[in-house]
């Protein structure tokens, strides 16, 4: 051992370079721009520099009997284990090739092949371990040391294998180099790893301890078991061989003693000659006389005192093996005392000779065992990794996909019954989950559709057929339910309220807020208070409990249908479009107030303008102007004006349809982002409808009524056929009222006729105050019966229905009102 220490210390000079390089590259890669280099470049630079460290180790190695002890392998190992397989292989190749060539300038010629091969091997070995065993992470210090030590065992084995023709010298070299090389290389790699580990830990302080992987957890006990097995088997072999060697020595000593005794019995005088022999290779015999003086032929010890020469003999019993010492060297000895001649015969064998075979065998055994156990460790490690860890990773990877939302992923690991059951369990769990999700989605869809239904039915969707105005509105929601809405209704002072509004946001929350806004506005508007006060009051209501911070833009007008005067208030809504009779559509410039629910206490302003018969107001939400095509261009206010001005329309329904078509065409396949809501209103005015009345309905009035209607119809240029048809209708309805509406005393009837401008049709209205009677409820006669079977009567209403295009019956305020329309 005492020879190892200075050797080891000397070798550490080179290992310091390896440690320094490891620290340097670690810091470069973590804290400087070096990390931005491509992986290959980094590997090459690291590989080359560690190769240089390997060369340094070679040149400053320590020559031991023709072989060079050094830490060259540690350079390749550190590069490979700590920085990557490619770096390790490059460093190994550089170090190995240089070691081979270095023999030319005097570096250990004897083992040049073995040493260069080992270094190359070290590079590959480290790369392999890093990639396949340590999952491209640096190893722990224990594994770093083991790798270094085992590499040197391999190195020694390679020396042996390349020098099989000269095993004695090879063995000699191995015996000297083995321990220091294992220590130096193991420690070098270990210290490099330790330095980096410490640096990494310092950086990570404060972070919670990283969980270790199964293979890491498995490594340590496996290593402990392997090391324990190794120590046990080595110790056992050592003791067996020691005992065997002792036994062998004892037999040798005893055989010689017996031989000398039997010789002495025959020739007592010649005992010295008999005893002058070699025992084993370098053992010999002492003969001492009765005074204990050595008398045998061995000149060196002649005449000396046996007890003084062979230390240990005094306390030893005769005929037993004992450990003696001659000139400070250890011997295995046995002695016996003879009576005739009276002498002491002591046989000795040097301990070194006795144990040399044991020591040699131990060396070989230890090396072989290290290799076997290292291989065993690696194989067991890989088997576990292959059977368990890899499969778990596979499952984890699929689970990761599932967690990221891909519920179609199937776990497909059936390599063992445990994994098969795990896979099946996970798959069935996911299936159940999928089922629940589908059910929940279905429920939500149903509820959304229901909500949409409620929302749509809250908006007026029956458009009154009125002589004094024409109105139409549409709403297309982007999601199932939206935040847009429109409204129109008469308040008590017979002003027509027109409203368009847009709630911030979309979906259920917007729809709920929309319902609130709608009822607030309508509630106040029906109180017949000015429109600005309607908004101011509604704003107060909407601000209350508006924790969600929603708001509404709204534009509402109150139209006096009798004179066309309009009052309106704008709460941050898009400007409406107005068309004056005979002029193009233009935006109505107005001052916009704050959005509703925006701020408590806001006072809205009323603005006014005058409508003339024929004027049109077009209201819309930003869903129209901000509809986007695939290039993200907006439909825009210009395009809306162009569309309206180029539209060929008769009714307000036409306008809404044309605008919607234009928006749809513009948007193309792009998704609809916002609700699209429109309301078109045309003011026609309330000229009194021409009428003829009778206090007491009678069929005798019919010619008079017919004449009145004919006169009116001729004003509109109606043809004779239309006039005749209308006359039939008058005849049928008037005679019905005369005969059936009242009892004996009769009652009043009024007939009105006019042309509806908005629909280009003739409207005929009968009003009586008789008993409620809806002629539309009367079933049609069967007109397929034969003349004999057919009933007389019932044909009148049937003919009216056939002649007129539209018939509506209302019973309002005790009056039967029958309104009929015929297109002309």
């Amino acid at each position, binding site marked *: 051992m005492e020879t190892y220490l200075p050797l080891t210390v000397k070798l550490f000079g080179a290992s310091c370079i390896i440690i320094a390089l490891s620290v340097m590259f670690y810091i470069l890669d973590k804290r400087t721009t070096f990390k931005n280099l491509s992986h290959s470049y980094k590997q090459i630079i690291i590989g080359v520099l560690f190769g240089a460290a390997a060369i340094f180790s070679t040149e400053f190695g320590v020559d031991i009997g023709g072989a060079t002890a050094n830490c060259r392998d540690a350079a390749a190992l550190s590069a490979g284990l700590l920085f990557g397989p490619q770096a390790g292989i490059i460093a190994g190749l550089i170090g190995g090739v240089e070691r081979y060539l270095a023999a030319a300038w005097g570096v250990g010629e004897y083992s040049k092949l073995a040493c260069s091969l080992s270094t190359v091997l070290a590079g590959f070995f480290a790369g392999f371990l890093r990639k396949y065993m340590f999952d491209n992470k640096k190893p722990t210090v224990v594994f770093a040391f083991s790798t270094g030590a085992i590499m040197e065992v391999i190195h020694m084995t390679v020396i042996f294998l390349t020098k099989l023709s000269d095993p004695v010298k090879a063995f000699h070299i191995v015996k000297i180099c083995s321990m220091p090389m294992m220590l130096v290389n193991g420690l070098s790699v270990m210290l490099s790893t330790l330095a980096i580990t410490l640096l990494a830990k310092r950086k990570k302080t404060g972070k919670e301890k990283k969980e270790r992987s199964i293979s890491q957890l498995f490594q340590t006990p496996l290593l402990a078991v392997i090391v324990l097995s190794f120590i046990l088997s080595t110790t056992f072999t050592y003791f067996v061989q020691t005992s065997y060697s002792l036994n062998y020595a004892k037999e040798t000593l005893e055989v010689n003693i017996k031989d000398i005794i039997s010789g002495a019995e025959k020739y007592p005088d010649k005992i010295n000659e008999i005893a002058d022999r070699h025992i084993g290779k370098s053992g010999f015999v002492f003969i001492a006389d009765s005074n204990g003086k050595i008398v045998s032929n061995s000149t060196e010890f002649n005449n000396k005192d046996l007890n003084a020469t062979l230390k240990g003999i005094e306390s030893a019993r005769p005929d037993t093996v004992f450990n003696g010492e001659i000139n400070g060297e250890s011997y295995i000895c046995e002695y016996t005392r003879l009576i005739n001649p009276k002498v002491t015969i002591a046989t000795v064998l040097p301990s070194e000779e006795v144990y040399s075979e044991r020591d040699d065998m131990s060396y070989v055994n230890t090396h072989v065992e290290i290799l076997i156990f290292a291989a065993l460790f690696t194989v067991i490690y890989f088997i576990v990794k292959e059977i368990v860890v890899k499969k778990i990773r596979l499952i984890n990877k699929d689970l990761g996909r599932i967690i990221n939302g891909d519920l179609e992923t199937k776990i497909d690991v059936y390599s063992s019954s445990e994994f098969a059951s795990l896979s099946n369990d996970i798959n069935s769990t996911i299936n159940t989950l999928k089922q629940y999700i589908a059910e929940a989605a279905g429920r939500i869809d149903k509820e959304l559709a229901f909500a949409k239904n409620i929302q749509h039915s809250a908006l007026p969707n029956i458009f009154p057929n009125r002589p004094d105005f024409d109105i139409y509105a549409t709403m297309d929601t982007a999601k199932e339910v939206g935040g847009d809405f429109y409204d129109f209704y008469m308040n008590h002072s017979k002003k027509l309220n027109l409203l368009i509004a847009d709630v911030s946001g979309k979906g259920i929350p917007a729809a709920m807020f929309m319902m609130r806004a709608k009822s607030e506005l309508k509630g106040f508007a029906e109180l017949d208070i000015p429109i600005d006060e309607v908004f101011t009051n509604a704003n107060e209501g909407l601000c209350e409990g508006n924790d969600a911070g929603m708001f509404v833009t709204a534009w509402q007008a109150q139209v006096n249908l009798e004179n066309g005067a309009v009052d309106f208030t704008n709460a941050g809504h898009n400007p409406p479009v107005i068309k004056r009779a005979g002029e193009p559509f233009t935006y109505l410039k107005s001052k916009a107030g704050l959005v509703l629910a925006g701020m408590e206490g806001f006072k809205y302003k009323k603005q006014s303008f005058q409508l003339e018969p024929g004027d049109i107001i077009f209201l819309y939400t930003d869903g129209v102007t901000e509809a986007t095509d695939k290039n993200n261009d907006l439909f825009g206010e210009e395009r809306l004006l162009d569309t309206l001005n180029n539209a060929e329309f008769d009714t307000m329904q036409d306008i809404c349809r044309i605008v919607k078509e234009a928006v749809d065409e513009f948007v193309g396949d792009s998704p609809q982002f916002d609700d699209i809501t429109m309301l078109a209103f045309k003011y026609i005015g309330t000229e009194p409808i021409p009428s003829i009345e009778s206090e007491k309905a009678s069929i005798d009035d019919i010619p008079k009524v017919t004449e009145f209607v004919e006169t009116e119809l001729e004003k509109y240029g109606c043809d004779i056929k239309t006039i005749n048809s209308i006359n039939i209708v008058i005849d049928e309805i*008037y005679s019905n009222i005369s005969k059936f509406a009242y009892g004996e005393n009769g009652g009043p009837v009024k007939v009105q006729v006019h042309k509806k401008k908005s629909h280009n049709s003739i409207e005929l209205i009968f009003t009586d105050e008789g008993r409620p009677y809806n002629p539309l409820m009367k079933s049609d006669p069967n007109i397929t*019966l034969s003349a004999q079977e057919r009933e*007389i009567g019932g044909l*009148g209403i049937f003919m009216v229905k056939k002649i007129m295009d539209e018939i509506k019956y209302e019973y309002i305020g005790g009056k039967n009102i029958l309104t009929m329309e015929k297109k002309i």
Partner: protein
Amino acid sequence: MTVNTIKNAGAITIEISGRIDTTTAPQLEKEVNDNIAGVSELIFDFKDVAYISSAGLRVLLTAQKVMNQQGKMKIVNVSKDIMEIFDITGFADIMDIQRS
């Protein structure tokens, strides 16, 4: 409405002009009833009829039912507009109607 009845042996032709409606239908009904006894052929000439309402149709139907028992009935010189009324009421199917 004016009505003119031409008798010719067992056949009579009733020429009508103007409107057949609630007020005039009773006049036509009376004309038919006065002349229909023993007639084997009844012809209505609609050459100058402007329109006919359900009251007029009722007179025609009543006459048709009588004539079914004792002979035949015809409506001639029916204008396009009047024909429409006969068509929509199904009268075209049960009466012998000739277009003008």
